[in-house]
């Protein structure tokens, strides 16, 4: 018997719709579950005191500081490199075999799993350059990891700046570099900030690459050569070694809120950027 195409369509739509609904529900469940279990444990004291007894009691202050410092350091290193790369690719060259190779390399770098970054950071920065497990080793490793994100988003942002604006700048006698500094970059800024925020979000959530390069010392970092423990690493250790489920949930809640906030700013920026371009 042939089933009428109308019925097949209704069935297909029902199936596809429920799959979509299921997907959204699973992801919403993850957030609601963790926040529900964790938020009651998130108090001002939890955020502002040192952990005691390996994290079984007390707060997460040093890991909070680590979570702020490490991504900032990574961005400070990756931003000039990433924006420089995208300026060069868009403003200073034509499409050649070399630019294609550079782009291909960037795409490949983006696909490398974080554990490989961890291995590399360990053997190169920690052991090879004898820097030890520290903020700087971790920051450099994360910088390489987020470089592709920064390059890609700023390249898109720079390409979106209309060519006529550059031509106006040239016709006023500005050089290429002056045009880049005064016309292109200021107008691409929201797009570049999107990339920065995405990079920060990824760094905050990263564990494998951080634990082998920045270490996991549970104390306040004083210098760039001190080992730090980020919230992700702290959470991983609390959960994996079964130190405290309650503290683990609370840390996870703070972690999720931070990442979502950072990503939300990124998307807000992107939408403002797109809206302005459309005008």
């Amino acid at each position, binding site marked *: 018997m042939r089933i009428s*195409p109308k019925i*097949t*369509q209704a069935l*297909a*739509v029902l199936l*596809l*719709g429920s*799959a*979509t609904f*299921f*997907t959204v529900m*699973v*992801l919403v469940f*993850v957030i609601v*579950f963790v926040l529900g279990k964790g938020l009651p444990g998130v108090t001002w004291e939890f955020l502002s005191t040192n952990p005691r007894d390996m994290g079984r009691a007390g707060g997460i202050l040093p890991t909070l500081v680590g979570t702020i410092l490490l991504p900032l350091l990574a961005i400070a290193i990756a931003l*000039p*490199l990433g924006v*420089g*790369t995208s*300026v*060069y690719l868009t403003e*200073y060259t034509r499409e050649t075999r070399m630019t294609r*190779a*550079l782009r291909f*390399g*960037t*795409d*490949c*770098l983006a*696909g*490398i*799993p*974080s*554990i*490989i*970054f*961890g*291995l590399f950071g360990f053997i*190169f920065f920690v052991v*090879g350059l004898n820097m030890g497990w520290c903020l700087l080793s971790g920051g450099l490793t994360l910088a390489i990891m987020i*470089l592709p994100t920064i390059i890609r988003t700023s390249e898109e942002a720079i390409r979106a700046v209309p060519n006529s604006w550059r031509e106006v700048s040239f016709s006023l006698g500005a*050089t*290429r*570099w002056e045009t*880049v500094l005064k016309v292109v970059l200021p107008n691409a800024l929201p797009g570049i900030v999107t990339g920065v925020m995405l990079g920060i*979000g990824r760094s*905050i*959530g990263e564990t*494998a690459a951080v634990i082998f390069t920045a270490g996991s010392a549970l104390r306040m970092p004083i210098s760039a050569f001190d080992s730090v423990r980020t919230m*992700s690493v702290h*959470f*991983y250790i609390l*959960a994996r070694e079964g130190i405290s*489920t309650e503290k*683990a949930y609370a840390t996870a809640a703070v*972690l*999720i809120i931070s*990442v979502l906030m950072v*990503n*939300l700013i990124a998307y807000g920026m992107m939408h403002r950027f797109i809206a302005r371009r459309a005008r």
Partner: protein
Amino acid sequence: MKFNGENIAKYALMTVAFSAVASLLLIAVFIFKEGLPFMMKVGLKDFLFASDWDPLAGKFGIYPMIVASLWVTFGAMLIGAPLGIAGAIFLNEFAPPMMMKIIKPTIELLAGIPSVVFGFLGVMVLAPWIRATLGGPGLSVLAASIILGIMVLPTVLSISIDAIASVPNSYREGALALGATRWQSVYMVTIKAARSGIIASIILAMGRALGETMAVIMVAGNTVKVPHAVTDPVRTLTANIALEMANATGMAREALFATGIVLFMVIMVLNGIALSAIKGKARKK
């Protein structure tokens, strides 16, 4: 060459532009430098195809880990790919545009949830459920597959959405004009036209699943054994590296870098295929 600001800027930028490629090469060189001599010493056959992993006794067979990684990655794709593609088709072709505007950014936002959080949920929620309903230790191939399947959903969904959205509307209109229903036009025309992008999304997701470490360590159970059932605990290649890295020295550490080489090569190949699938399509248009 004139030595002025313009030229300095140009050459400085040119140097900087090599940072990503240089990093990639540096990573490859250092992982290979640490791992390759070990591979030569032990021999490919005794490294890739032997089942005994006991670094203290000088046994370095990673075959169980290779099988485990394949099972877990394949399982993750069985869960993540159909759901993600179904979602992409529904949002593009059947849902009101408003729904797409809300759901796509929400799901991309959720792509930022740290992998350790997914792993933790796997331990707290999924593993006890598997233990109660299917038996076994709970921490297993199945638990890891489900968690990874969920984690790669945003990748599959958002790349597939872009692929389907880039199919020209005239294709759909042509099918509808011939009397096809919307669904017929979707599976006979749209999906075929968006094929390469959808395949690329699956391959990229495979790379992510294969490379994921912390979530897998938490839910897979980490026993070095070739799995026979989906409820068996396993240790993947990535988990092996991360678990032993802290204490390994000498040969044992070199073995981990050699494991890293295997992972690096497989993922480079996967990404190469995915990238050329995306690029090939861009050229055709």
